[in-house]
């Protein structure tokens, strides 16, 4: 970069006046939002991975020459999972190293709990929780090194090698045990298998990142355009002053990059400052340790540079269009037609999705792949439908504002699509996830507690004992060996049907513990753990994606509206001079966004719902009505926020059209 360019850029940036400063500030604000969102997404992605890795030591890694027995099991209280790790040092073997978070390998009778579990033990009656653990000694605390989240419920218990909880019968048996119950001889805690409750976190975040990256890019592009629209104002003056187009382009790039970098830095600082608050946002197993969400300086630098670069590229490409048109106005003489192939592709993808969701239940992976496919197809389809919408409305429009809006839609369908795409796709994603997957229901396990036993004879014997224990604890229940809800899976055991709320259920699980021969009784949450882990994550992802999309889409709608006003301030100004009411121009601006928003956001949300119903029908589940209501509220709020953002540039419209000297010279 030659120094005259830098010098002139600085001079012009300083002398660009109040309106120039305003649009610089807006662009910087957009860059700040963009980098904050990107860094937050990145933090969630890296943090989810780091966090999941912290759970790996609990699943035993078998070693034939091991020195201890490790048994993992999972018990639920109030439908929240507690990871229980039982450890027994083998006699006459070398000493086993300490597990993460503990000072030493626990001796028989020692037990350690996570801080969150300690709180629960203090607040819940012992008959509902504490009696599941050794009663004698007080417990010590597991430090953060052994935990994935401050909210995690974990217990580590030292046992005798002969204790039933570390016996062979405590190993995984039934179909529900995968990832929840396991037992092995180990020599340390080098396990690599992430817990059921964290294994899908990172993939889900990645999907969210994929869905949000595009809106963030759109936002950065809008910010770049805003700067260029203002720059174009002095394009002619610069030419007269002897600057070459290349120099002007370079100046624009430098200025946009500087503004973008400044904004992105503010976003990065905000990310740093917000880390403690971000760490309080629960995801999956709960809130975060602050350190897990710090992405490191190289990543921060990369995001700042990336956002600044995006804005500079967008500003330069906008200016290039403007500079090449004779009147200095970015007008295409012949709007590029959107071709029918977009519709054909979209329909093909729909048909493909319809065919592949028919029949058998889908794996989450396939589901996500189909969703991404749909997303891509929709990105192709969007401009086409906006173009058609513009033409249909243009044909039948009767009011001037509607006609103007419709003509603008078919003039630049891609631009109009970009403005609304964030909200539209968020509507689809949210429709699909929050409504669809929340409602997965397989067997009905409500109010049931299963106690697995070694064999059928033991089960028959245990029925009477279970009745006695439950009666003694004051729990109203019927007990039998029949398992209509398939809660025992294929193993032998007893099923108690408990009447009463979660407290009664937790009491039953606690008091029936002696019958389990080393295994803890369990309720429906245990059997559904695998499904809920996935569907909960996707539902949370849907909500988060929706919220962030709204934020980003609102910001880019506001910026685009402002940039549009600046782009056409001459025409708007002249129209206003000729007596065209500002009201009409303003209404046209709003309709230009509202029309595609109504049709597309409504349409996609409905499509998302429909897709969710179809997929879930195959999976044998139901629709969640509360999710549907929540979604409708969200989409409405998002649309209103967007309108407010567009309305925010009304004073700008008034200001740039007010001075006849600006319009006519």
């Amino acid at each position, binding site marked *: 970069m030659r120094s005259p360019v830098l010098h002139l850029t600085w001079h012009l940036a300083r002398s660009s006046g109040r309106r120039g400063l305003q649009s610089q500030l807006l662009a910087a604000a957009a860059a700040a939002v963009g980098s904050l969102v990107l860094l937050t997404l990145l933090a969630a992605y890296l943090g989810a991975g780091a966090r999941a890795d912290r759970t790996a030591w609990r699943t035993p890694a078998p070693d034939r020459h091991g020195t201890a027995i490790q048994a993992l099991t999972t018990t639920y209280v109030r439908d929240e999972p507690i990871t229980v790790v039982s450890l027994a040092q083998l006699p006459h073997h070398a000493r086993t190293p300490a597990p993460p978070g503990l000072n030493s390998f626990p001796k028989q009778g020692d037990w350690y709990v996570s801080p969150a579990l300690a709180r629960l033990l203090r607040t819940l009656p012992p008959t509902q929780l504490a009696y599941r653990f050794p009663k004698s000694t007080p417990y010590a605390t597991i430090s953060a090194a052994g935990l994935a989240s401050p909210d995690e419920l974990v217990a580590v218990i030292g046992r005798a090698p002969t204790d039933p909880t570390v016996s062979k019968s405590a190993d995984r048996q039934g179909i529900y045990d995968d990832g929840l119950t396991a037992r092995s001889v180990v020599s340390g805690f080098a396990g690599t298998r992430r817990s059921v409750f964290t294994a899908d976190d990172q993939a889900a975040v990645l999907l969210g990142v994929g869905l949000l990256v595009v809106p963030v890019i759109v936002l950065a592009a809008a910010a770049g355009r805003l700067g260029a629209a203002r720059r174009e104002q002095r394009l002619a003056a610069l030419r007269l002053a002897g600057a070459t187009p290349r120099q002007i382009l370079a100046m624009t790039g430098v200025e946009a990059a500087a503004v973008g970098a400044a904004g992105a830095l503010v976003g990065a600082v905000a990310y740093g400052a917000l880390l403690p608050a971000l760490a309080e946002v629960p995801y999956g197993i709960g809130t975060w340790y602050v350190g897990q969400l710090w992405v490191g300086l190289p990543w921060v630098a990369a995001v700042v540079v990336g956002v600044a670069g995006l804005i500079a590229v967008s500003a330069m490409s906008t200016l290039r269009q403007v500079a090449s048109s004779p*009147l200095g*106005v970015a*007008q*295409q*003489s*012949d*709007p590029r037609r959107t071709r029918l192939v977009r519709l054909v592709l979209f329909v093909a993808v729909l048909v493909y999705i319809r065919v592949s969701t028919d029949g058998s239940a889908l794996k989450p992976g396939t589901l996500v792949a189909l969703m991404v496919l749909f997303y891509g197809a929709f990105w192709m389809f969007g401009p086409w439908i906006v173009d058609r919408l513009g033409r249909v409305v243009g044909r039948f*429009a*009767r*009011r*001037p504002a509607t*006609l*103007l809006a419709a*003509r*603008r839609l*078919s*003039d*630049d369908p891609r631009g109009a699509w970009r403005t609304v795409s964030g909200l539209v796709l968020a509507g689809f994603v949210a429709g699909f996830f929050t409504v669809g997957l929340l409602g997965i229901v397989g067997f009905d396990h409500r109010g049931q507690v299963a106690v697995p036993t070694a064999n059928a004879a033991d089960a028959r014997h245990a029925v009477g004992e279970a009745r006695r224990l439950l009666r003694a604890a004051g729990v109203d229940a019927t007990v039998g060996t029949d398992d209509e809800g398939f809660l025992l899976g294929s193993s032998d055991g007893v099923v108690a049907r408990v009447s009463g709320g979660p407290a009664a259920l937790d009491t039953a699980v606690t008091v029936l513990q002696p019958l389990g021969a080393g295994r803890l009784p369990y309720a429906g949450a245990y059997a559904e753990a695998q499904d809920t882990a996935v569907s909960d994550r996707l539902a949370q992802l849907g909500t988060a994606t929706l919220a962030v999309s709204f934020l980003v889409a609102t910001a880019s709608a506001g910026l685009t509206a402002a940039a549009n006003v600046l782009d056409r301030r*001459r*025409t708007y100004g*002249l*129209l*206003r*001079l*000729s*007596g*065209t*009411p500002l009201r*009409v121009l303003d209404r046209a601006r709003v309709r230009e966004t509202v029309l595609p928003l109504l049709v597309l956001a409504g349409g996609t949300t409905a499509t998302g719902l429909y897709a969710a119903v179809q997929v879930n029908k195959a999976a044998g589940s139901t629709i969640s009505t509360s999710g549907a209501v929540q979604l409708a509220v969200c989409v409405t709020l998002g649309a209103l926020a967007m309108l407010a953002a567009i309305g925010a540039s009304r004073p700008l419209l008034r200001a740039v059209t007010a001075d*006849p*000297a600006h*319009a*006519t*010279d």
Partner: protein
Amino acid sequence: MSAVLAGVGLIKKYGSTTALAGVDVEVGACDSLAIMGPSGSGKSTLLHTLAGIVRPDGGQVLLRGERSEMGVPPAEGWGRIDDLGENRLSALRRKRFGFVFQSGQLLPELPAEENVALPLMLEGLPRAQAVERARRWFAPLGLDGLERRRPGQLSGGQAQRVAIARALAVAPDVVFADEPTGALDQATGTEVVRLLTSVTREQGAALVMVTHDAEVAAHCDRILQVRDGRISNYSQFTVS
């Protein structure tokens, strides 16, 4: 000659610069007036003041057929327009005036005929009728077959002729043109201004045109020379 628009003792100041230093001017119905003068002499300011776009700091702008908002009318059938509210002024410009600017006044995404029909639709004419009325202007202005073209697909001269059609479509009393040929080459400019003056005359509207081109000004009935915000010379070609 019966006047339709008059400026009396017009004064306009921008900070320390005096753009208009007491100008008296009268525009007759069916009359065409060219305003000439060096750059920065106050031509545009005079046009904007007469058109109710800029409010004068002193003097009055009178329009025949308007009722004054307050006070006694200066003369029977005349009204002051320089003291009207923003909304009334806007409506007045829309209904009684037409405007042709140097460039950039057509909405780029609207076909030519819709650009012309827009002011009619703003007046409440149903769209089909507005477009039908707009189309009638295309043949007389030599724009036959260009009705569905968008401004970007028109030459500079064609775009100015569409702008003329738009200005005249509402049947205004006065057409204001600020450097209508400023972005055109000599030959095209001459053709455009010939059409502008003749069509305006046929419609029975008055024309007030700012230009720095003597050849363009010669198409008008009268020429007003402005210098430093004052009328420095006044010539009349035709006697009416």
